[in-house]
């Protein structure tokens, strides 16, 4: 289902739903009243598109010339130009059957047709091929099978309804009509689509471009046995790689170093960068660090060294500032981050993050620096799996960086916060008053000043461990040390024996 004008509507249906008489574009509420057992999931057209693209790429095994052809929901197609390819698979029948089988194996409902023109194949696959389980193949004549197809098969979208209103149901009905009047009444598109289907007009498939691989490799007649010589080779391959990247204005985000051992084993080292990088010295340095720490087994030697950029993004050169200010160039920081990450690991280098919550340990924390979309998991124990409700889904969106106007309303918080609140034994004068003294980690603290309570209700929309309110107190001990305590549970309403926890200091 998806949300459009008029609320949530059905986006695509599976076979069972179609059999139950539901149709695309129906309101979800109507559909549910017709079919109470209906299960709906929200649609994600962007994901569908990516999947189709991947499928089209996978079809590259039958033809180098493939393109995704997104259509109505549930009617996406893939176009293949199999000119000259059939011979390799033992004929067109076998090629089509093999393609169909491979796609159906993935769990899709698929139909296929092969025809001399793109337009005819498109129409046949959608309207005539449903009767043929192993695909429909037209080799020579075009006009006969085309004339038998309904007008929708011409790739004209809603114009087909107009044609039907005039009683023109088959493509053959259009055949006898003068072109000039067709074009005048229904537009040039109809005529050109008709010509394309008949093969009178050229139509070119714009195929998926093969991905460019950025890589550099060096072979050696004598195997390398020393780590230093491998590092030297990495420097040379990095130079070549960066020249390639430079020519296309790309920067490297993820790189792989393949070391081919003489005995056929491949050693793989990979790393990511915080910002697109194109500096050979930097890349060499990162890999040298990796090589030092990886303790690789060189064995009888390495005879091929290959450096590959497995992920790249656009990287334009940028203008340096004219005035000298006390700032650090952004790429210097990115390089520092890379070096730290390579040596210490991904999880050890973190940045501040916050999210929409008023529970202190959830509201802000530190998240891994690399991996821009990663959701914040400030402390173990509070993390949870993505839920089904709308709010929970929103909860799992990437956390924005700490900016914005919220700074004005930030509440008073202690400088240090414990990952897990720790139980303390507190003595209070009245059940919902501040503690007069407390014992935390076997040390008694006498409270001389206190502020509070700041009552934080649990977030009822999340299922959580302790659905009780917390009353936070900021206290100062006799010595002037500051702590942040809370009492869990409202006295009388939620519990009769409230527990105290220390949650932060200073």
């Amino acid at each position, binding site marked *: 289902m998806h949300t459009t004008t008029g609320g949530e509507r059905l986006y695509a249906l599976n076979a069972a739903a179609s059999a139950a008489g539901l149709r695309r574009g129906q309101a979800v509420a109507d559909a549910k009243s017709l079919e109470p057992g209906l299960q709906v999931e929200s649609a994600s057209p962007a994901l569908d598109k990516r999947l189709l693209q991947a499928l089209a790429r996978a079809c590259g095994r039958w033809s180098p010339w493939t393109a995704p052809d997104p259509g109505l929901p549930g009617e996406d197609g893939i176009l293949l130009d199999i000119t000259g390819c059939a011979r390799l698979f033992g004929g067109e029948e076998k090629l089509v059957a093999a393609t169909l089988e491979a796609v159906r194996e993935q769990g899709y409902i698929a139909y296929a047709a092969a025809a001399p023109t793109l337009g005819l194949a498109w129409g046949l696959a959608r309207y005539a091929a449903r009767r043929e389980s192993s695909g429909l193949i037209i080799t020579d004549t075009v006009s006969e099978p085309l004339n038998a197809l309904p007008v929708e098969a011409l790739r004209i979208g809603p114009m087909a309804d107009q044609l039907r209103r005039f009683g023109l149901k088959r493509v053959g009905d259009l055949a006898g009509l003068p072109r000039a009047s067709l074009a005048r009444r229904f537009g040039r598109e109809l005529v050109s689509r008709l010509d394309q289907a008949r093969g009178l007009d050229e139509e070119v498939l714009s195929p998926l471009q093969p991905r460019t691989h950025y890589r550099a490799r060096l072979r050696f007649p004598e195997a390398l046995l020393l780590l230093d010589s491998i590092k030297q080779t990495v420097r040379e391959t990095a130079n070549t790689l960066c020249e390639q990247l430079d020519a296309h204005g790309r920067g490297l985000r993820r790189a792989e170093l393949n070391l081919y051992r003489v005995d056929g084993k491949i050693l793989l080292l990979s790393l990511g960068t915080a910002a697109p990088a194109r500096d050979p010295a930097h890349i060499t340095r990162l890999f040298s660090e990796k090589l030092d720490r990886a303790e690789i087994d060189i064995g009888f030697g390495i005879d091929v060294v290959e450096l590959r950029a497995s992920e790249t993004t656009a990287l334009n050169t940028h203008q340096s500032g004219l005035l000298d200010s006390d*700032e650090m160039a952004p790429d210097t920081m990115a*390089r520092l981050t890379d070096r730290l990450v390579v040596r210490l690991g991904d999880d050890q280098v973190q940045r501040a993050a916050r999210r929409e919550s008023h529970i202190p340990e959830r509201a802000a924390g530190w998240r891994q620096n690399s991996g821009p979309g990663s959701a914040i998991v400030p402390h173990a124990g509070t993390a949870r799996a993505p839920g089904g409700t709308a709010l929970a889904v929103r909860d799992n969106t990437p956390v924005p960086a700490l900016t914005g106007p919220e700074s004005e309303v930030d509440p008073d918080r202690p400088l240090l916060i*414990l990952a897990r609140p720790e139980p303390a034994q507190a003595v209070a004068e009245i059940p919902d*008053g*501040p503690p*007069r003294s407390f014992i935390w980690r076997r040390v008694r603290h006498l409270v*001389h000043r206190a502020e509070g309570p700041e009552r934080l209700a649990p977030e009822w929309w999340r299922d959580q461990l302790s659905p009780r309110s917390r009353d936070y107190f900021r206290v100062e001990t006799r010595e*002037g040390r500051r702590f942040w305590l809370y009492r869990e549970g409202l006295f009388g309403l939620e519990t009769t024996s409230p527990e105290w926890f220390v949650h932060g*200091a200073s």
Partner: protein
Amino acid sequence: MRSASSRRKGRPQLDQLRAKIRDIAPGALPAMPAPPGVQGQASGEVRELINLQSGLHEICPQDYLDTPSALAVQTGFFSQALRRHESARPIVWVRRTGGRSQDFGQPYPLALKQWGLPPERILLVETSEVTDSLWAMEEALNSGAWLMGEIGAEHRYDLTASKRLHMAAQARGALALILRSHDRVQPSAALTRWRISARPSLAEAWRGATGLPGMGAPCFRAQLERVRGGPPRNFDIEWKHAAFHVLEPAPLANRPATDLPPAPAQRQIA
């Protein structure tokens, strides 16, 4: 002075040695600054000291339980220096997992803002090994970032290690603040070492919870335990309006014992 000293035996070698040191570390042998007097324009001196110069400085808690207070003072000193230098450089905060200050939890981004540190500029680095800590600190300083470090009681952090950090910080005009342990600390090459303990704040009767007075601005006792070219001193400081203020006794208590006319009371505080 040089000619006079050269005449004495052994002096030329010393001069050569000095020249060599100057080549290696320019500015390592400055003419000693006049030690900041205890008397005189007290507030002026104090401002000079609390606004730390670029280089390495150390903070130690007085007691184990003062560790959060020491970290708070460290954060405050840092943000004050950041503001004075109008520095837009990133901040690298290096912590040890399992360190003493870790006992009290992790820095809380929302609170950092209250202590004057912009959290979006901080890169928090957690290491398990002290060698990694020292390496990360030096890398950060060499890249030009400012450093908040927590090292704790660690014998690997010695004169050599601290000298390296200090020189890296000074070369880039950066500030490096290191939190050390409350118990015995080895000597180091830091410019200053502060020992911090919490002090009761001035009570505010109208803000407190039921039955107790409220808390005023956080107060600390900062003992300048070690300073290059100066005597140690004590300060009572208060964090208020995003700056440290020195709490001083009234001018009457500090006046000289002569009959000079009293100077106009100018209380400029940092």
